[in-house]
Structure formats: C-alpha cells, structure tokens
C-alpha cells in the first residue's frame, strides 16, 4: 500500500507521488511533471485555452487521496456483468478487477497500471502523448496518479464486447478527495477493441483523469467516455489519441454530470490514411459548467476526421465548445469536417462555440460550422396538437436533437444508458434524478 493514502495533498506546490518499486523512467517523468506543474501553476482564465473556465474554486481546496469507499457505500458497476472485462476504481484506487477471463486470451492484457509498469509497451508509450510539458492538468495527473487501467491488445487480436474502466468517486467522512486516474490503451497492429470509461459518484470531489490511446497500424478503436459525475464534483479529463497508419478511431463523449467539467479530447492523426470520428453530446442544467476542448491534429497525408459535438443547455447552465483542427504542412489531401450544434432551452443558459481551423497547406478539404438554436415552436405545437403533453413534447424534441449521436453508439448498454439518462435529465424531471446514472452506490 502506498504511503500517500489518507493524506492531504496541498496542490499549490506539488511533490511527485511515487509508487513503491516504480521504474526509473516513471520516477523521472513524475518528477519532471511535478516540476512542470509547479512552474505552470493552475491554469487561469488569462490563458486563451482556459478563458471560459476558472479553476479558482478547485485550486483553493486541499484534496486528499483515499481509497476507502465513499461513506458507507459499496461500488456496483452501472453495466452489471455486461462488459467483457472491467476494472473498477474508487477514488482512483483499484476496487474490483473483473478482467481475469479476458486475460486468458493470449492477445489481451488488461491490468491495473501499477502492475503494468514493467512491460515493454508501457515503457514505449506511457506519457508520450499526453503533454505534461505544456498542460498543467496533465502534469498534475502525471505527477500524482496512483492507478488506472492498462490495456494492451496484441496485433491482429479482435476483442469481442467492450472493456469497461469504471471510476467511482465520493468524499470519505466529508473530506474532499481526489481521483487522479491514469489509463493507457495500446491497440496493436490490425487489432480491434472497444473501451468504455465511465465516471460517476456522489458529493464533492475532484477527478483529474488522463487516458492515452495508441491505435497501431490498421487498428480499429472505439472509445466512449461517459461522464456523469456528481453535481458537486469537479471533473477534468483528457483523452489523448495517437493514430498510426490506416487506423480507425471513434471517440464518443457523453457529458451529463459534474458541477465544473473540463473535457479535453485530442487526437493526432500521425500515420497516412488514418481516420477519426469524434462525437460528443453534453446535456446540462442547473448551474453546471462544461468546457469541451478538442484538438485534432492532422500530421500525416490522406487522413479523414469528422467531428460533431452537440450541446443541450437548460436553466443557468454554461457550455463551451472550443474545437481546433490543425492541418500540418505535410498533411496533404486532408479531409476534415467539424460541426457544433447547440440547443438552448432557457434564456439564461449560455453557450460559447468556437470552432477553428488552422491549415498549413493548400491541398485539403476542410469545413466547420456551429449553430445555436431554440426548440422549434412549430414542432412543439405539432406534437401537442396530437395529444402529447407539453413536457413530453419538449423531451421528445430534446431527445430528437441528441439522438443522432446517441443512436450511433454501437455498444447497446451504453446507448441505452445514455438514452435513459437523457430522458431522465430532461427538463421537468431533473430535480429528482440529477447526477445519477443508475443506483450505482447504495
């Protein structure tokens, strides 16, 4: 057991939190990352990348690591036994490991990060893509992480079903805790894998998660991030995707919970002919603040990317979509499309939409756009004129807006959970159901 448990960690100036017996390279990276965090400091709204989101409330708190279960609760997976393998973390520490069956396959290795540090591919890929030099929150995670999921799929291996990385958080004895989850997914050449990450919990806490995904040549990777944190929680999450030649990655983000959320999804299309579909839906109400920040970096020629983010905002919610597409000088024949659509359900909800393209060569086909609209009054009347109540009509239209993304989700239990949660989160039913995916914690 690590020495850091049950200890407050002041986050004004941090020390690396080494794990007993970690390899020299990891020790070194942690120390560097801690130094970088201390040098960079907490991001402030003076930074262009953070101009809509202040972390002042987060930075002023002292958070501690703790892997005791949140007050008198036990962790239960929102997906039951449906996942082919599952690692469950409570407050960032391993709580349940249901991967042994999947690990019987010679091409599949699913283990906690703590147990993976000696492997060759870990050494090759860990902390290579999520940039702790420039990004303070990634540096914070890199210096402090205690566990997470390591998934390694051998070349040519097709994993049936999906792998679930489940993060549950919550305060222990009213003490604010933090989750610094760190995951690494390495999909070998021509392999195929679906990974679902879920985040939820109760009460106030702070999640800062980093996931690095490496899609090897020709690999097909489907990644889902299902964020339904407590409304009192801070959630900062970075998914960093690295794509090699002809790989095909689908990234879907569902953001429903959290009081203050920063959701970074970044991808580098580094090998020729790689393709990426990046989709997201965020549904917010109350005083929720969700900042979606995406960067798609076209490094190699002949790559395709399609990005679609949709936001539904009610009451006093604040949403941000800041999406950047970069086409590097060598990335000729790039095909890229970026869209952000938003639905405002109240006059006090606010969305800032900032799609942007940065193109450094002439031989590309790129377009981007964003829309902000209200519910269609004509459609509302039409539904009501057929006997459907005003509230249900509204829910139907909100769902219709979101359905384009939800219905493309290939994992049935994720699709159904998302659809169910969307219905629950809709205006009118919100108060009673806020912030819970299922009865995950009893």
């Amino acid at each position, binding site marked *: 057991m690590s020495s850091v448990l049950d200890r407050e960690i002041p986050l004004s100036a941090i020390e690396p939190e080494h794990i007993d017996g970690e390899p020299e390279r990891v020790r070194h990276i942690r120390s560097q990352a801690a130094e970088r965090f201390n040098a960079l400091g907490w991001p402030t709204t003076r930074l262009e990348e953070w101009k809509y989101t202040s972390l002042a409330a987060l930075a002023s708190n002292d958070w501690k690591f703790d892997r005791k279960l949140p007050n008198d609760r036990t962790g239960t997976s929102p997906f039951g036994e449906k996942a082919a393998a599952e690692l469950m973390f409570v407050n960032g520490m391993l709580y349940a490991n249901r991967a042994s069956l999947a690990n019987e396959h010679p091409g599949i290795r699913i283990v906690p990060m703590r147990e993976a540090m000696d492997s060759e591919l870990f050494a090759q890929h860990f902390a290579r893509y999520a940039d702790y030099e420039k990004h303070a929150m990634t540096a914070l995670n890199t210096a402090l992480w205690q566990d997470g999921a390591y998934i390694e799929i051998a070349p040519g291996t097709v994993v049936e079903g999906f792998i679930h990385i489940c993060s549950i958080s919550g305060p222990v004895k009213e003490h604010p805790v933090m989750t610094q989850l760190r995951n690494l997914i390495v999909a070998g050449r021509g392999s195929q894998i679906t990974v679902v990450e879920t985040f939820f919990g109760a009460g106030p806490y702070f999640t800062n998660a980093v996931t690095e995904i490496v899609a090897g040549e020709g690999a097909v990777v489907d990644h889902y991030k299902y964020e339904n944190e407590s409304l009192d929680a801070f959630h900062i999450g970075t998914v960093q995707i690295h794509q090699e030649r002809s790989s095909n990655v689908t990234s879907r983000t569902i953001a429903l919970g959290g009081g203050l959320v920063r959701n970074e999804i970044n991808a580098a299309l580094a090998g020729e002919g790689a393709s990426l579909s990046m989709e997201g839906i965020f549904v917010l109400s109350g005083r929720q603040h969700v900042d979606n920040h995406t960067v798609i970096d076209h490094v190699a020629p002949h790559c395709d990317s399609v990005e679609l983010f949709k936001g539904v905002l009610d009451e006093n919610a604040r949403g941000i979509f800041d999406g950047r597409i970069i086409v590097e000088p060598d990335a000729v024949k790039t095909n890229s499309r970026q869209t952000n659509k938003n639905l405002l359900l109240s006059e006090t909800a606010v969305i800032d939409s900032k799609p942007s393209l940065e193109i450094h060569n002439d031989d590309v086909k790129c377009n981007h756009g964003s829309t902000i609209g209200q519910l269609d*009054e004509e459609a509302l*009347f039409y539904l009501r*004129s057929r*006997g*459907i109540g*005003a509230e249900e009509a509204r829910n139907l239209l909100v*769902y219709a807006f979101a359905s384009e993304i939800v219905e493309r989700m290939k994992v049935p239990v994720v699709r159904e959970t998302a659809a169910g949660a969307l219905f629950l989160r809709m205006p009118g039913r919100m108060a009673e159901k806020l912030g819970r995916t299922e009865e995950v914690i009893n």
Partner: protein
Amino acid sequence: MLDIKDLHAGIDGKEILKGLTLHVGTGEVHAIMGPNGSGKSTLANVLAGRPKYEVISGTVTYQGKDLLTLPTEERSREGVFLAMQYPVEIPGVNNIYFLKAALNAVRKHRGEEELDAMEFLQLAREKMKLVELDEAFMSRGVNEGFSGGEKKRNEIFQMAVLDPKLAILDETDSGLDIDALRIVAQGVNALRSEKHSVLVITHYQRLLRYLVPDFVHVLADGRIVKSGGKELAEELEQKGYEWIEEEVAAAR
C-alpha cells in the same frame, strides 16, 4: 358539436377573424371555402390552439365545453384534430413512436387502457392500408423527407389512428394528384359517422366531389359571408368569389 360565436382573433396584433359565427352539428360535414388570406387557416389554428394566435373576443363551445381555455394537447385528447396545411418535419422523432405516444395520451384521457407495442402496430398497419402509406415511412422521423402528398396522407393516417370527434382539414387536398385526393377522401369518409363531424377547408370543388359536404360556407375577410348546400361549391368553382364579395359589399 362545435359552436363558434362572434369570434374575433388575429396574429401579431392584426385582427383576421372579424366576428365569425359557425355552428357544426354532430355528424355533419362542413366545407369552408374562401379567397387566399381570408382567415381560413387562422380559424383552424385558433380552434387547435396554436400559441401565436390570439383570441380577441367571442366564444367557441365544443361539446358543451369552453374550447378556448383548454391547452392544445387537451383539445386533442378531447377529440379535436387538425390536419395541417403545412405539416412540420421533425427529424429524430420516430413516426411510429410519436403516434403511439399520441394515441396512448388520448386513450388515457378517455379512460381507456393504453395499447402495447403489438396492439398499436396492428392498428397502425390497418390504418396505413387505408391511406396507402408504405410501412417504411413509419420508421422515419415525423414527416422527415416526405413529399407534399406523403405529408398530407400522413395527416390523414394520424387522424384515422386517433379517431377524433371533430376533424379539421386545412387544405389537405391542395397540391394532391387525383389518386392522392381519392385516398384522402377515402380516409375522411371512413371516419364519417353520425358521431363524427368534419370541417374541410378547401379551395377546390374537386375534393368535395368525393366528400360530399352537408354545408358549404364562404369565408371572406374574417367572416362567414355566405352559406349553402353542396351546390354552392360548384357555383364558387365556376364563378369565383368576386360575385360574393360584390354581394356582401352591396348589402352593407
């Protein structure tokens, strides 16, 4: 069934209905004809409760109830159905899901048991045949990508499923070829009984050949200016509206 007395109503502060009075008895089919902009759709929309229309004065009694105080969905559940002149497309809301939700809302209101998916599909299939709509339409979004004629047939299909007491058809015949017209008429005639009333708004006598009305009214400048039997429709078709407008002017 429906009793409209001295109804004044408008939109965006502009008065369009200027003292309209009309009585529709149970089991009757009434046709309303009239020049463009005379207020036909305004009447239909006021009856259905479309939000942006304002009632200035007058009363509308439907089955003994004050219709104007009921919210839109209540009117529908009470049996008022408007087949719209311009049905809206609602991508993402599945046609069949929508109609099942609508029917069950209506049934619940009537104190009837809600239909499950199987029962509903059976009913829907039967009614689809009536309007000769292909089942493939049902899995699409509401009116999504439907042609004009398909949208109109979908209105009649919905009407057939919901089985309203008072059906109002706002130019459901406009833009339809003769086959589609026959199908629409077929749908309306199937509904027709001594318990159902129909208000057909139309510009053409064509539809009225299939759908013989008990009464024909001319709506001009926000009022019913002339009423008669089915032969009035033929007269209007031949002579246009001018002679009526002149008659009205002369009478002032």
